[in-house]
Structures are given as C-alpha cells and as structure tokens.
C-alpha cells in the first residue's frame, strides 16, 4: 500500500479558476461596446475620408448603409465605384428597392428619421455618389450622411 500512498512531489498546479472571470470580463466588454455586423463586406473596407465637421449617427436601427468601393471579387474590375447593397454588389438602379425594403422594417412614425449612410472610399468618383443621391431622392430618402472619420487631413 505504501507504494501508492507515496506523495508525489512536484510543482503544484497553478490555480486557473480566475481565468474564466477575466475572459468573461473581456467578453462583456466586447458585447457592450460593439454592434452585430449585419452585412458581409463585398467591397474592400472603404478608406473613409476624414473631416472635421462630422456628426455622430444616432439610432443605429434607423440607419441604412450603402458601401461604395472596390469590389473584393476581381470579376467586378479594379474600379473603386462598386456599390454594395445588403450582401451583394449592385447598381444604382437597385437603390430604391433597397431603401423601400429597409423602410418596411421600421415603424411608420420613425420613418422620417431614417438616414442613409454612404460609406464610400476616398478614391470613388463623385459620379457614383450622385447616381445614388438621385435615386435616393426618387424614393424620398432625403437624410443622408457621408461617412467620414474625424480628423484633420
């Protein structure tokens, strides 16, 4: 018996009981400070222009986002003027349908406060933005926000 009773000597195990707590803390931090990504980016992450007169967009649920930039998929060509609506590359003609769809998700009394945020790459052309703007005007989505990062250059 004594053979089994023999106490093994060695390093005592490090108590890792508080590790989950730390990780949970991190987890909660991320849960609180972030929002769910709704769409998969089909364009390369737009390099937003910077501006000083930026305003924070409030009411995330009332914001519909249009991305403009270079498509990740090489079959769309190298230009920076691809428009992404929802999850796919679209053309400006699809914008009204997109807006109407977004509008149907929002209660009627909130609809006038809906904002369209245009996240466009610095190198996109004004022409593309204008096309989008004209289509937005057609469906009376008049509040827009040109996404920009705060900064001075």
């Amino acid at each position: 018996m004594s053979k089994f009773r023999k106490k093994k000597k060695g390093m005592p195990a490090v108590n890792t009981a508080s590790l989950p707590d730390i990780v949970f803390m991190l987890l909660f931090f991320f849960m609180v400070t972030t929002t769910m990504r709704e769409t998969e980016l089909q364009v390369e992450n737009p390099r937003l222009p910077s501006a000083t007169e930026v305003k924070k967009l409030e009411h995330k649920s009332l914001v519909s986002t249009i991305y403009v930039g270079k498509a990740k998929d090489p079959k769309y060509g190298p230009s920076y003027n691809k428009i992404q609506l929802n999850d796919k590359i679209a053309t400006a003609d699809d914008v009204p349908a997109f807006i109407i769809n977004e509008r149907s998700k929002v209660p009627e009394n909130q609809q006038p406060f809906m904002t369209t945020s245009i996240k466009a790459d610095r190198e996109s052309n004004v022409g593309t933005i204008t096309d989008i703007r004209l289509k937005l005007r057609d469906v009376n989505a008049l509040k827009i926000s040109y996404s920009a990062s705060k900064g001075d250059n």
Partner: protein
Amino acid sequence: MARRENPEINAGSMADIAFLLLIFFLVTTTMNVDSGISKKLSEKPPPDYVPPIIKEKNIFEVNLNFKNELQVEGERMEIKDLKDAAMAFIDNGGGEGKIEDGVKTGPCDYCKGERSESSSDHPNKAIISVLSDRGTEYGVYLKVQNELLRAYSELRNRLSKERYGVSFDELEESYKDDRNNLALKKKVEDIKNAYPQIISDAEPTSSGN
C-alpha cells in the same frame, strides 16, 4: 466519520468556453462608431418647376474638375483657402435680406464682412453652389464640403458667442441634453436662421470620362 474534503471541481475548461464566446463576438461584431457629414437632399422638383431667379452676386460658385482642381468664383484656389473665401462671401452683408412671410429681414446687422456691392446681400440669401465633375475624387469632394461647413460653423460660433456668451457647438450640445428647454431651442434656431446653411449640389458634369 472523518470529514471528507470536497473534491475541487475542475474548471480548467471554463476558460476555453469563455474564449470561444469571446472570439465569436470579436468576429461577428463591429466596433466603429458611425459618424459622418450629414446632409439633407432637396426634394424632387415637380416637372413644371421653374427655378427662381437668383442674382449672380448671391451665388458662390465652387467648381471641382476631374483632376481634383478647385475653382472658386472663376479663379483657381487651394482647398485650404476655401474656408476663408466662403466666410467672406457669406458674411458680406451688402444689402437687404430676403422677405420671410411678408416680413423683411432688412440688412444684416451682425455681419462683419466688407459689405461689398459685388458679393452676397445677406447670409440668408447667400447660396453656395458646388459643381463637381463625375470623375472628381470623392475624398476631395468631401473635403470641399467640409471646408464649407467649417465656414458656417465658424460664423455661427462667433455670433453665438457674441449674443449668448457660449459657442454654437456648446449651445447645440446643451440643447441635445435638454430637448424641452424652449429658451435654449429659441437660441439655437436664432443662430441657425442668422446663418442658414444653403449649399446646393449642381448636377455634375462629365467632361473627364
């Protein structure tokens, strides 16, 4: 019976589970705060709409060509000078303001501009028209818009400091926190009406393509 010690529960895998959750959140969420330059588009004009005739001197023409070159009132300009030029134009106050609901606004008594005959009559008549090319780079276009907005906010801040002792930014900020404060609302609207932002986007040209 001898007291038996409670065996410790092995919590080693708990951290793994928490990490799994953490990584899931890291991947599926975004953190960026959405901010941008807000604009209100004009409504679609009816087909038989005739635009009002505006005196040439009340329009501040800003042109951007497809090479991202800036032209203001017929002369080339660097973007860094745009703000001051716009401020001089808006704040000129060379004449009578527009007639609102039958009431004349009269001449601009808070303007500090040159009161030149050839520039704008009144801030509420001053229109900034931005004409860009389809090929203009969006970043440059936004920079121009930003400079124009800066001109307005600087003027508003100045007037607000003069009238109420605080800058317009602070005034707006405190109004945001206290939406029901009518006195504050009146102040904000007062400044806004004194320097209304009238920036119009003309249909872009397409010479560069």
